[in-house]
C-alpha cells in the first residue's frame, strides 16, 4: 500500500495550509478521529485553489496532496470526473487494476489502488475528496454542482 509516490506526497505535501476560499468545510473520520479543514476557491468554473489543514495518517495526508495537485487549475466538470474516477478506484476493493485511461485521469493518484484493498484505510484516502466535494457544493450550490456533473455518470 505504501507506494513511493504516496510516501513522497506524505513527506512533501502540495498546497498544504489554509488560504482564502469561497467555502470551508471540516470533515472527521469517525473511525479514527482524523480531521481535515478544507477550503475551495473558484474562479468561475475553474478550481482556483484547494487549501487544507488537518491531522491524519500518511494515506489521508498524501491523498489531500494529490487532490491539490490534480484538481487545482481544472474546470469543474473535469475535476468532478477525476473525483469520481478516484472514488470508483477506492471503492473497488482491490478489484480494479488501473488501465492507461484511468492513469491518464488520475496520474499520481493511481498509486492509491493498493489502498482500496484495505477498507479501513479507504476512508482515510477519501477524507479530503469528500471534503472537497462538500466544499464545492457549498461554494457553488448543489445545483451548480449538478449542472457540471460529467455526462453519463451520476454524482
Amino acid at each position: 500500500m505504501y507506494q513511493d509516490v504516496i510516501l513522497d506526497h506524505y513527506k512533501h505535501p502540495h498546497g498544504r495550509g489554509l488560504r482564502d476560499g469561497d467555502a470551508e468545510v471540516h470533515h472527521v473520520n469517525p473511525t479514527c478521529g482524523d480531521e481535515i479543514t478544507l477550503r475551495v476557491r473558484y474562479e468561475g468554473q475553474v478550481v482556483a485553489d484547494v487549501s487544507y489543514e488537518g491531522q491524519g495518517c500518511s494515506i489521508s495526508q498524501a491523498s489531500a496532496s494529490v487532490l491539490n495537485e490534480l484538481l487545482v487549475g481544472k474546470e469543474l466538470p473535469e475535476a468532478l470526473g477525476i473525483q469520481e474516477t478516484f472514488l470508483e478506484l477506492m471503492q473497488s476493493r482491490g478489484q480494479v487494476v488501473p488501465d492507461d485511461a484511468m492513469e491518464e485521469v488520475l496520474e499520481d493518484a493511481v498509486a492509491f489502488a493498493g489502498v482500496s484493498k484495505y477498507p479501513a484505510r479507504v476512508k482515510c484516502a477519501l477524507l479530503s475528496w469528500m471534503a472537497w466535494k462538500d466544499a464545492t457544493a457549498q461554494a457553488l450550490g448543489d445545483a451548480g454542482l449538478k449542472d457540471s456533473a460529467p455526462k453519463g455518470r451520476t454524482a
Partner: protein
Amino acid sequence: MTQTHPGPVLPGLLDTETIRKDFPILHRTVHGGKPLVYLDNAASSHKPRQVLDALNDYYEQHHSNVHRGVHVLAEEATALYEGARDKVAAFINAPSRDEVIFTKNASESLNLVANMLGWADEPYRVDARTEIVITEMEHHSNIVPWQLLAQRTGAELKWFGLTDDGRLDLSDIDRIITERTKVVSFVLVSNVLGTLNPVDRIVRRAQEVGALVVIDASQAAPHMRVDVQSLGADFVAFTGHKMCGPTGIGVLWGRQELLEDLPPFLGGGEMIETVTMSSSTYAAAPYKFEAGTPPIAQAVGLGAAVDYLSGIGMEKIAAHEHAITRYALDRLAEVPDLRIIGPVTGEDRGATISFTLGDIHPHDVGQVLDEQGIAVRVGHHCARPVCLRYGIPATTRASFYLYSTPAEVDALVTGLEYVRRFFG
C-alpha cells in the same frame, strides 16, 4: 423412525431426508433411544451444519473486534460482519443495506422502535395526545414495549380484538386507527394461532392517518418470503434463532429516512461520530443503533442461515410447510376432544397449530408426549391475552419447519391418542 420413513407423500414436500442430514441435533435420541420428534419450531429452530461451520470458521480463523482495526483479522471480521448485513438485506429485499440493524433478538428490535418514537421529535413523537395500536394476538414482546411507552409518555394503547376463528377483527378499523394514531404494530404470523394477518388493509389505513407501521415478522421470516418493500411497513422486526441462525441476534429493518431522523436508543462505542465529555454526535444508520461490540459471530451465523434458507428457496419452504400443516390439520381433526385454537383450515396461516385436548392440562399433554420423544410447547406461548380471549389457561402447540415430516405428524397424533388414554 422419522429418519427412515418420512411418512405419506404429499405434493409440495421438500426432500427432508437430505435436509435432515444437515441438522446434527435431529439425529439424537431422547428418553432411552426414542428418536426426537421436534415440533417446537415456533419457539426456536435448530441449526444446520452450515451455520455451525460458519461460526467455527469465524472464531477459529477470523475473530476480532470490527470496524476500527487496520490489521488482517479486523479487516476480515469486519468484512464478514458487514457481509452478513448484505445477505440479510438481500434476503428481505431491503432497498439499502444501511436499513438493516443488528440487535440481540426481535424483542430488542421492537423495544428499539418504541424507544425511538418515545424520544423522537415531531412528527414521530409519541406523547400524551397520541395513540398506539396493537392487536390482541401479539407476542408479549410486541405488547410490553408499547405498554411501557404508553405509561411513560401518557399515550393511549388500543388494540384490535380477535374473531372466534382466530383472525383479527378489523370491522372497527376506522375507529381503532384514527388521526391520533402515531404507530400501528402487529404480528405478521401469530406464534399461537398461526394466523397470517392481512397486511395491506392495515397498512392502507395507517397510511391514511399518517401512522407508522411496525411489523413483527418473527414467525414469518423463517417460513416465507418477507419482502419489506412489498409489505409497505416502516419497520420490520425478526429474530435469528427461529430461522436456523444462532441465538443472540435479531434484526430491525427500518426505512432509511426514518432511521436518519430518529434518535438513538442505546449509547456507546460504535454508534458515535465524535464524543467529548459534554456532548456527542452520532454515526449514520445502521451504526447509530448498534452500540457496543455487535453480535459479530451471530451475524455471521445468521448470514449463513439466510444463505442456507435461500439455497433451498423460501417459496419451496413455504410450500412444504403448507403441505405439512394441511396434513396435520386433517389428522388432528381425527383426535376426539381436540380443539384447535386458531384457523382450522390451511388458508392464510403458518405452520403453527395450537390446541386443547379435552380438559387435560397442556403441561400434562406435553409431558406425556415428551416421554414418547415428541417435543411440543405448552403454556401461553408468551401471548397470554390470546389464552384469555379464548377462555383457556394454556394450549399445546405443535409447530413445523422445513425439516418436519408427515411421519412426525403421525407420531404426534399417535402420541395424543396415548395421552388421552393415559389421563382417560
